[in-house]
């Protein structure tokens, strides 16, 4: 079994879109809880992870610090989770059930590189 990190990416517009109406927010919330529960029941969820604030700082060369992450980028990472899967294909399959996709966002799945290959 290998570890994978799922990065939930969505634009602020997607967040507002999923909100739409309070009842829609309620449905979205239910879908996420159900999805996490499903992964937990199947033993796939290593860590539910954490949500991230949209606003932050981006630090680069010459100690330049800009407000970020990337104001012009569409997709901002809204949070992450860690899962276990046999391979990248299986991890991608798990990620395909993520409610953020329905709402117009993306899930980026990246294998965690182990120390010893």
């Amino acid at each position, binding site marked *: 079994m290998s570890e994978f990190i799922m990065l939930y990416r969505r634009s602020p517009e997607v967040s507002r879109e*999923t909100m739409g*109406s309070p*009842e829609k*927010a*309620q449905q*979205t919330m239910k879908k*996420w809880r159900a999805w*996490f529960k499903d992964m937990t029941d199947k033993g796939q969820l290593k860590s539910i992870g954490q949500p991230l604030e949209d606003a932050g700082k981006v630090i680069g060369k010459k100690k330049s610090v800009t407000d970020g992450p990337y104001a012009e980028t569409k997709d901002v990472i809204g949070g992450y989770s860690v899962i276990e899967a046999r391979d990248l294909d299986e991890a991608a399959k798990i990620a395909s059930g993520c409610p953020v996709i329905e709402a117009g966002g993306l899930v980026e799945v990246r294998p965690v590189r182990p120390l010893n290959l």
Partner: protein
Amino acid sequence: MELEEHLFRREAGRLVAVLTGLFGTQNLALAEDVVQDAFIRALETWKFYGVPKNPSAWLMTTAKRRALDALRRQGTARKFAPEVSRLLESEWTRAPALDAAFDAGGVTDTQLRMMFSCVHPKLPAETQIALILHLLCGFGTDETAAAFLKRPAAMEKRLARAKKTLADSRELFELKGAGDVASRLPAVLRALYLLFNEGYHGASPQTAIRQELCHEAMRLASLLLENPLTTTPPAHALAALMDLDAARLPARRSAGGDLILLVDQDRSLWDKGLIDAGLRHLALAAQGEEMTVYHIEAAIAAEHAAARGIRETDWGAIVSLYETLMRIQPSPVVALNRAIALAQRDGPRAGLEEVGKIADRERLLRYPFYFTAIGEFELRLKNTFKARKAFSTALRLARNPEERRFLQERIARS
């Protein structure tokens, strides 16, 4: 913790009211934005950490913080009411002003003020109810449109126009004295009554009964009874009517989802708690001098609630209540109901005769239950051919699958 049903919807109504009370009706859109922001935060936080123990308090604190941010960002650029302006201008008084607006008693009162604002005399009744559903019950534009069988785009336009009307008043309606209340309470009661009826036997193409509309109407009516100024005998009468009618909801549909007429309902399924609550309200409603439609309709519902079965029902009393109703607010539908009660008292032939005498009978020609009633009378007279004909006409007018199934079953039986 599990997410309570319709939590966001209910909280939206409370928070939008409180923030509009603070910002003024011309800043309703700002209030709605703040609430939406708070909900987005809730969504994105709770999906990882779970629903907090007190989600209402969490949302309120978050909304407060978002409101402060919004005011900091654009406070000076916006026009607020002068007395609020002073509070919101200074960093020192802003937070206490928000705290005061969000305290428990304040929340109920502001919701009442919002309700009174929604029944603005310039707005048609249907728009008033749509606005109440949208602003106080947290129904999105699409859901509000669905409640009125309108297209979402049309509803959006209508709500936008209505919000402009509210903005012109700048402030939420003041409820300081009996005079303020008297000028608009009848319109508030009427809006809640129509909302309840829309849920109880509306013309929705999807389903005959929409309990959530009934529940929202009942919830708002109970808010009226939390403030001494709005706790009037007609408000109690309306609450009585809703409780007593809602008590029968569990028996109105079979396990398979079929409609069940009062005559055939299993009365053990009626909600005893609601019946008791309704009777208590009815007693309190009797204290005034004014006799409203709600009083009479509640009294009719109480007659049904008190009866063990259809035979034990005091149909004489019900007929005379319908007669009183005809005097206060005559309509062909009331006349039809009177005829149905009369048929229970004097037999189906009397019912048929009465139906023939209804003034403005043409107005019932698109109403499926008019032909259903005729069909029932004919069936009881064993005129199966005529009964089938009436049920077939009703079937063509039926508005949703439940009504259609009900009538098909009637045709098969006759």
